[in-house]
């Protein structure tokens, strides 16, 4: 496992989020992620895991606190969000591939229109990434022709095509058939080994144990406990986490 560097890429300080309908999504959350670090976030449904992840690239606004990514304040009014987001790849539970485009076009679109790189370079980059996720032969397929596991690997490659510094994963395997889970996790393991900075919301405890530098437990919008995986899973010094682990690991 590669060791994280000292540079802090994500700095979440005392963030609170109340939705328009009054539901509290986050309560005083703080979290720091260093370059090259893999952080897994676990917790029961509705505990705010997705909300936290989505505030990092400003898909969700925050009510209080501050978030800095790569030294830039994400929720400042003058933040250049489009530019900042190019440094943060995101992978969704439901893939969200562009159904009207081929796999290759899915990978080429953002580098072409956002960064403005040439057609040839974009194609070359896309083909390399497809080979990396094991889907070189699906370049001309449409997303609907792929299995869930294949679609999610394309989604990962699409995010990587922007050459981000950080990858955010929101339950990337939760919508998959059990036998397809590993092909996606394997791609993520390769990324982790290469030193990618990753925030992964997941229910895959095996993956967290094997790959994460740090595991974060959330409940009711709060970060309740965080630790390195060994201690986190073996003997957590927190009652609520023990109860949660007792449920999911049985």
């Amino acid at each position: 496992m590669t060791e994280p560097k000292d540079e802090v890429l994500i700095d979440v300080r005392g963030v609170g989020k109340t939705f328009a309908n009054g539901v509290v999504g986050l309560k005083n959350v703080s979290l720091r992620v260093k370059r090259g670090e893999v952080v897994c976030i676990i917790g029961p449904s509705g505990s705010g895991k997705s909300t936290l992840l989505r505030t990092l690239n400003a898909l969700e606004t925050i009510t209080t606190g501050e978030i800095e990514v790569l030294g830039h304040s994400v929720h400042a009014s003058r933040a250049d969000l489009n530019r900042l987001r190019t440094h943060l790849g995101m992978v969704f539970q439901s893939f969200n591939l562009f159904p009207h485009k081929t796999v290759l076009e899915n990978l080429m679109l953002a580098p072409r229109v956002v960064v403005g790189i040439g057609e040839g370079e974009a194609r070359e980059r896309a083909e390399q990434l497809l080979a990396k996720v094991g889907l070189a032969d699906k370049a001309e397929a449409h997303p609907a022709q792929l299995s869930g596991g294949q679609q999610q690997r394309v989604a990962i490659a699409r995010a990587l095509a922007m050459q981000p510094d950080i990858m955010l994963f929101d339950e990337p395997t939760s919508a998959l058939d059990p036998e397809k889970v590993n092909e996606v996790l394997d791609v993520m393991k390769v990324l982790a080994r290469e030193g990618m900075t990753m925030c992964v919301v997941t229910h895959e405890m095996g993956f967290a144990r094997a790959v994460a530098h740090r595991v974060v437990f959330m409940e009711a919008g709060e970060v309740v406990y965080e630790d390195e995986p060994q201690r986190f899973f073996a003997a957590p010094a927190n009652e609520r986490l023990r109860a949660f682990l007792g449920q999911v690991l049985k």
Partner: protein
Amino acid sequence: MYVAVLLAIGYALHAAGDRIEYSWRWERIPQYLVSNEGTELKASFDGFVSVGADGKSLTLKELKGGRRETLTGFDDLLVGDGDLVFQNDPLARKRGLVPGPLTLGLWMTLRISAVALLFSMLLGLAAGLGRVSRNPAAYGLATTYVELIRGTPLLVQIFIFYFFVGTVLKLSAFTAGVAALAVFTGAYVAEIVRAGIEAIPKGQMEAARSLGMSVPQAMRHVILPQAFKKTLPPLAGQFINLIKDSSLVSVMALTDLTKAGREVVASTFSPFEVWFTVAAMYLVLTGTLSWCVRRLEKRLAHD
């Protein structure tokens, strides 16, 4: 069964005609579609005619002035040597088939509808984007436009365009008619566009934004191409309405298919045949349009 019912209806119509002692004169109709009257060459000013020795050329000398005009290449002479004619009097005729008034009316309807369709698309797209915009000014403007147009009858809007907007801006009847139809249809297109955009799952916009695309980039490359497929059937319906609604511009000084029908009825006293013919011509237009759209849909469904 289908054919049987159609035959029965056809017979009933015929019988109904007999009941009111209507004499069907279908043979009168074709000349209003294609006429073999040829084109008349008309005098451009008042003057005296002198016919050439071979009868194949004709010269008009202006009555009060020095202008001269020579016509050749006609088939029938309609005036004699030395005749005094006035401006716009027919001088000679060129034989051949020319479109009759109904065909000209159809052509006018087609032109008005096509130009109005183009502008209603642009207007509807802009207003539809306004309807889903988070910018309060864009949203407010688009909403006001849509509510205003959908809340008033088209005929009233046409009168406003013709008598008020047209007069103030000195628009031709054609421009005013096209504008009225485009503005009217645009409001409905806007709602179709809005519904189409809202039917695209939220995750599509989020995925595009998470890759760094701006809202306009995401709209152009991700949302609208998908929305277009979904909106094609309702859009086609709206454009068929546009063709039918275009008959209302016949209240302006525009000879579209409906107005041409009225004029032909006035000169033939065969209202039944003429209106059935006019209806059939509208059907051909709308039928062709829906056929094209169905083909386009099939093509899009393949990729």
